[in-house]
């Protein structure tokens, strides 16, 4: 990969370290594993070492770049373009990567978390026949995610954008033998495609107005090309946001994420928690200048975010599948991030994304370890229950003593998610709640507070039903439940440590008794400088008082108390109650059933969108194509000419006299003409 001599980008002459290789390594991993999958599916050595190894190397390069950025203090982005991809008329776009603080942070999250998950997968997928193919897809996913995060222009970002959609399609439907799983993969891809439609139209508008699609040119030209709050920028950003909604599973395009749980658990951890779903937030952060120029859209982003947070949290309350609870929790937390970036607190949104990656991946992997243990136990006993039965919370309970390490790490993730003090969630989530409140949006602020309580509720219920209380696992099976192998435990522990430490990167100044630390915000400050200036000019400062009075510190304590109280109460109540295993447990009734049935959204979509579209297609085909065009015009004209031919042939009766009469009539006419004329 030869790097073209790059026009001297501004900045302290800081040179990124092998940027091309960050992206190239996972691609090589994909090719090697892909070849191994096709040629020698049996051998596990290559994927085991190549898979995680390639990602580890990439992580080290990103780390090196991070260190060199911190060292050189470079603020300006550096663009490396490798070859001109499309050049037509006055439109020109190169296959180019951009290294700046935001992309390095995102790359760090992507490569870091995925490295741990690759290691974890070695254990989790060890017995699976499609082992090599799994790692090939996972490496391809990391390649596309890095392309998305490191892109220097919108089309290359779109390559990553659709690429990750493709990989999630392949990975959700990884066990393609079961039709449900293949269908879930397809659903994910089509819903993502609806989002991509919005993204594309947004791109076209951007090009029509700014004449280029490179980040540097677009963001430089944006303030001149668009007037603040004008219809053009609002519509452009609305379409871009439609793309984000599709990719980051916000209302109304969130339906694919819960079904994505059909994929293997590490996939859910990587794609549907830490990396892919955050792409939407990354896009809004990257195009912060555009969203800053469109107040209406930013408001909508915050609104949709808050609404999704509440909506998803409500559903999570009544879910019994161990992975689906966390899936809805992810949607909810993404809602938080969108709320943050929607009100202009871009750094806070990214910080929550950063911490969320750790504890959400942790929760998924812990769930994976539990499922892994249970599978082996059931298998040892000789029974093979369906996947839903194994993953049903009502069939678990009291696994604390059987799986000590898993339960401790799971609880660490749960506390972080709930936003309890020492853990990361407390710092990042509260910051978002506070910045929404400081922006004066009282309703959204209240909704987010309520959701914080609901989050504490469902995560406590989740952890309690799994680990504490009286066990509902049949006696003989319980004996065989063992801890996951070390190759799976190490990532768990590291992530647990991460979710403990990550929060301290950025302690909000307003918090009492704590030293104000803003290393994360300062790191990202230059990236959002331009956007925040626009926010400053038009929307004014963040106030220092919550909509209903009280400063940041006060409300931090209130939230902490609220979350901690709810958590502890639910924990006690769930561990004490005698719950029935899934087979005999009654379906929840009343409002709880509405939540259990996920507000019947899937059924509504199916009835009002999927089925009519299919029926319309059928009508189009049968009635219009076959019937109208083919039947009436094409065959119809053929039949008409044949009928005309038949009618004319009736004239020839075969009786000579009729012909004589015809001749005479002719003679008469001629005579009349001759005499008349």
């Amino acid at each position, binding site marked *: 990969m030869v790097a073209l001599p790059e026009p001297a980008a501004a900045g302290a002459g800081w040179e990124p370290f092998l940027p091309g290789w960050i992206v190239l390594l996972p691609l090589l991993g994909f090719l090697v594993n892909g070849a191994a999958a096709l040629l020698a599916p049996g051998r596990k050595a290559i994927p085991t070492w190549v898979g995680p190894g390639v990602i580890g190397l990439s992580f080290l390069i990103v780390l090196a770049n991070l260190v060199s950025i911190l060292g050189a203090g470079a603020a300006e982005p550096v663009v490396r373009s490798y070859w001109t991809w499309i050049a037509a008329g006055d439109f020109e776009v190169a296959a180019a990567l951009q290294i700046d603080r935001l992309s390095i942070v995102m790359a760090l999250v992507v490569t870091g978390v995925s490295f741990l998950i690759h290691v974890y997968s070695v254990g989790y997928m060890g017995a699976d026949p499609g082992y090599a193919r799994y790692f090939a897809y996972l490496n391809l996913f990391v390649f596309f995610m890095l392309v998305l995060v490191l892109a220097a222009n919108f089309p290359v970002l779109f390559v990553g954008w659709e690429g990750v959609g493709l990989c999630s399609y392949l990975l959700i439907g990884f066990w393609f033998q079961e039709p449900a799983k293949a269908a879930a993969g397809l659903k994910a891809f089509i819903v993502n495609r609806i989002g991509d439609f919005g993204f594309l139209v947004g791109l076209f508008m951007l090009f029509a107005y700014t004449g280029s699609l490179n980040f540097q040119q677009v963001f430089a030209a944006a303030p001149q090309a668009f007037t603040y709050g004008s219809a053009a920028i609002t519509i452009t950003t609305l379409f871009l946001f439609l793309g984000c909604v599709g990719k980051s599973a916000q209302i109304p395009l969130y339906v694919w994420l819960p079904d994505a749980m059909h994929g293997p658990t590490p996939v859910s951890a990587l794609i549907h928690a830490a990396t892919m779903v955050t792409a939407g937030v990354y896009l809004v952060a990257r195009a912060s200048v555009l969203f800053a120029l469109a107040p209406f859209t930013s408001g909508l982003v915050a609104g949709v975010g808050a609404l999704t947070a509440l909506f998803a949290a409500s559903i999570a309350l009544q879910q019994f599948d161990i992975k689906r609870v966390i899936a809805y929790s992810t949607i909810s937390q993404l809602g938080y991030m969108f709320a943050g970036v929607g009100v202009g607190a871009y750094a806070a949104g990214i910080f929550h994304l950063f911490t969320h990656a750790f504890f959400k991946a942790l929760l998924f992997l812990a769930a994976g370890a539990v499922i892994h243990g249970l599978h082996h136990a059931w298998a040892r006993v000789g029974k093979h229950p369906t996947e839903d039965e194994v993953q049903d919370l009502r069939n678990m309970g009291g696994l604390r003593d059987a799986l000590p390490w898993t339960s401790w790490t799971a609880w660490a993730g749960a506390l972080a998610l709930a936003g309890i003090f020492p853990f990361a969630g407390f710092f990042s989530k509260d910051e978002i709640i506070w910045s929404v409140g400081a922006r004066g949006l009282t309703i959204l602020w209240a909704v987010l507070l309520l959701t914080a309580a609901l989050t504490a509720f469902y995560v406590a219920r989740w952890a309690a039903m799994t680990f504490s209380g009286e066990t509902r696992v049949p006696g003989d099976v319980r004996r065989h439940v063992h801890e996951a192998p070390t190759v799976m435990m190490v990532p768990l522990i590291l992530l647990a440590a991460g979710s403990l430490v990550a929060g301290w990167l950025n302690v909000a100044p307003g918090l009492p008794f704590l030293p104000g630390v803003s290393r994360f915000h300062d790191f990202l400050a230059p990236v959002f400088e331009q956007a925040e200036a626009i926010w400053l000019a038009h929307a004014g400062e963040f106030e220092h008082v919550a909509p209903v009075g009280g400063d940041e510190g006060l409300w931090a304590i209130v939230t902490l108390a609220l979350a901690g109280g709810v958590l502890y109460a639910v924990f006690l109540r769930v561990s004490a109650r005698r719950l029935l295993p899934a087979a005999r447990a009654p379906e929840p009734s009343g409002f709880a059933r509405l939540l259990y049935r996920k507000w019947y959204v899937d059924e509504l979509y199916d009835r009002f969108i999927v089925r009519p579209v299919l029926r319309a297609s059928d009508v189009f085909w049968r009635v219009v194509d076959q019937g109208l065009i083919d039947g009436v015009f094409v065959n119809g004209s053929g039949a008409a000419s044949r009928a005309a031919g038949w009618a004319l042939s009736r004239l*020839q009766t*075969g*009786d000579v006299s009729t*012909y*004589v009469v015809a001749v005479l009539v002719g003679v008469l006419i001629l005579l009349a003409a001759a005499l008349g004329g």
Partner: protein
Amino acid sequence: MLTESLLLSAFLFTIGVAGVLLRRNAIIIFMCIEIMLNAVNLAFIALSRYVGIEGQIFVFFVMVVAAAEAAVGLAIIIAIFRHYESVDIQNFNLLRW
């Protein structure tokens, strides 16, 4: 004399035509055709007195053609009769598409 003979020829011709149309017997149709031919001959002869001898020469040729036509026609009728055992022209309906 000219107009009367031409009128007579016209009447004769019409009777011949009516005969061809009305009868189904092939031989009778043939005879009617002969009548029509003679009507035409009469017209020729009537006019030849004024226009010149060519009229009569033409009649001579008409007669030759009539003879040949009668011979071949009757031969055809015999051949068909052998096939259909009748001369009713409604049986000969092959002449159609």
